[in-house]
């Protein structure tokens, strides 16, 4: 227990260190930025939780953004007739419907998940665009904005994190998903139906998509039904969060917390650069270097230790 707390504190050094660094060098960055950083981290974290379920099962998915937009569109449509109940129901039904269709296609046709996800992305983008009509976006009533605002979006994300933790660490299906992702052949040999486990994993992403649909819609008050793979942009930040989280897993095995760490780091970097007045191109370069630096740090430290040992022996 004591070790875990120490590890958690060590991990927190990353976002805290970044925050202090930007506070010192950027005039407009400081404690007043905290609510915005927390708020902006929530959507990529929730999408990241859903992505993590699939990545644990050894699958890759680019359609989480499109499915979230589709769920948000259904939620927006329902909210116009049924208020907050319609909003919640619409987001859930839309996201789950999209997930079930994707899971069924994967199970029936046995095509790689990445390929299906791109097909699903294209289809649901068009469906959402058709639903919203010529305006290209759908708005919700002002009274519903509060659901996606700080601190309620943090509470919703916390709930999603708890759900992920229970699913992954306290339920059998979570263990099966991880086992299938690690060694599918071995799982089949011990009697685990890997195809069924992956099917369930895809459906479970629908739950997290419904959270992200709700946050996306209420955060800005509207959702844009972009086409031509525009929704793919929505998954890149979450993918970075999950990759960072998986890399940091050797410190403490609690993916919701680690994905949050990743989300906070990336959001702090983006906001820090805006405060510094850096252009978008430079922001992307530095973010890429940060990712390489963090992910390469383990290999670098191992090499450093090997070199030290060599020197000692010599």
């Amino acid at each position, binding site marked *: 227990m004591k070790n875990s707390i120490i590890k958690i504190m060590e991990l927190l050094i990353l976002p805290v260190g970044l925050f202090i660094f930007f506070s010192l060098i*950027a005039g*407009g*960055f400081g404690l*007043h*930025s905290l609510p*915005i950083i927390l*708020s*902006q981290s929530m*959507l990529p974290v929730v999408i990241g939780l859903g992505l993590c379920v699939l990545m644990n099962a050894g699958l890759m998915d680019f359609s989480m953004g499109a499915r979230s*937009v589709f769920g948000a569109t259904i939620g927006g449509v329902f909210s116009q007739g049924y208020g907050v109940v319609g909003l919640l129901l619409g987001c859930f039904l839309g996201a789950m419907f999209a997930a079930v269709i994707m899971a069924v296609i994967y199970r029936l046709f046995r095509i790689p998940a990445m390929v299906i996800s791109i097909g699903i992305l294209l289809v649901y983008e068009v469906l959402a*665009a058709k639903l919203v009509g*010529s*305006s*290209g*976006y759908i*708005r919700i009533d002002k009274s519903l*904005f509060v659901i996606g*605002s700080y601190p309620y979006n943090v509470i919703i994300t916390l709930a999603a994190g708890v759900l992920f933790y229970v699913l992954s660490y306290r339920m059998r299906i979570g263990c099966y998903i991880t086992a299938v992702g690690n060694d599918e052949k071995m799982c089949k040999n011990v009697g685990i139906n890997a195809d069924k486990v992956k099917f369930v994993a895809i459906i479970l992403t629908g739950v997290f998509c419904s959270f992200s649909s709700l946050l*996306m819609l209420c*955060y*800005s*008050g*509207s*959702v*844009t*039904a*972009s*086409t*031509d793979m*525009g*929704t793919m*942009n*929505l998954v890149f930040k979450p993918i970075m969060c999950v990759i960072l989280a998986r890399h940091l897993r050797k410190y403490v095995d609690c993916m919701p917390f680690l994905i949050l760490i990743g989300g906070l780091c990336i959001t702090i970097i*983006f*906001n820090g650069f*805006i*405060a510094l*007045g850096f*252009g*978008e*191109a430079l922001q992307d370069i530095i973010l890429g270097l940060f990712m390489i630096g963090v992910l390469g740090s383990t290999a670098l430290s191992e090499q450093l230790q090997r070199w030290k040992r060599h020197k000692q022996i010599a």
Partner: protein
Amino acid sequence: MKSKFLVGLLTATMVIGCMTGCGSSTESSTAKTSTVAEKDTTATTAVEAGNESTSMEAAADATSAESTGSNSVETKPYKLAVGLPDSGATMFSLMSNNIKTFVNATGGEVVFQGGVGASADATIQFVEDQIAAGANGIIISPPSDSVIPTVDSLCSDAGVYWGITFRTVKDDAVKELLNSSKYYIGNCSEDEYSAGYKVMSNLHDKGVTKVAIISQAKGNTTTDLREAGANKACQDFGMEIVAEARSLTQASDATSAAESFLTAYSDLDAIFVVGTTGTGMHEAIAKAIEDAGRQNDVKLATIDFPDSMVSLFESGDLVTCAGLASWGYDPFMITVTLANQCMGCPISNTPVSYSCNMFDINDLDTAKAWVSRFGNDQTLYYDKDTMVKTYCKANNSGLTADSMQKAITDFTENSLSK
């Protein structure tokens, strides 16, 4: 035995598929060749000088020879492809409805496709696909000058006319290429530089000094020119662009960007939406400003008129915007020029270059007047009869590049009085 049979069957299917595929490409290349041959034949028989090459000039001569003393000439059916979306925002639907009305009334058909200007690959893919689909004319809005030589080469090889909307060509070598191209019919563009300058100037008049911008990726000709105009205004008026966000596609991205701007710059005066492909962005930004409690301090400005312009002016969030009288008018006029070319009645023997002047809206009344005129996607720029009689060269021999330019100027200046 069973597996051998299956292998044999699959192999046979593959071979038959290959043969069919080869057959169709041969047919399509034969079709392209015969299309070019048809154009060659038309030019040869029509021009007394015996010019065998297919050229805009030859087609023009042919048309003149045929149409002497006649107000109505039988025009060829044609197919156009426009690399712009026909839905997703009122301005897209308005543009496509007007183009469809003209093209259908003059015996043609038209298809639209969005996302073409997103990248050079997307543009080239679109051109190749439409050539293969039998288009006689293509309109694109290229993301940069670098893709233009390839497009011209593809179209010239296929004998397909093509034109540019919403863009000017900056590169001198590309300009030279286009001037000597036989299949390039011209371009229509706006004075994006002046639009960017004008919006910043209007903001300066309202006491704005620090501005954050939301724009497209660097290299996009339209937004690069608008930003250049904005930067010039900054130099002239002592203003400063303090932050930027680019290539936003979702409303939530716009809210995030605006929140970041507002948090980082307590003295920010305005957020200027220079250009965006996403819809609902302006309302998302206005929400961020309202959530931060800074409606009185931070204003919104934009180029192009959003669907929610009236409500944004009413709430006081939006203070100035500049744009075309109607966004779709630019592609409409260049498509009219292309259609005439494809019908065999070209408006000009040399590539045209239309310039659309922008105007600005700075108050609610003007915004309401604009929306009442162009807020409905069923509005026609001209009634159908006028389109056919005035903008079809076969029916109006006086239609020239100059008269088209005059029409553009008149439309902009008088658009709200109609």
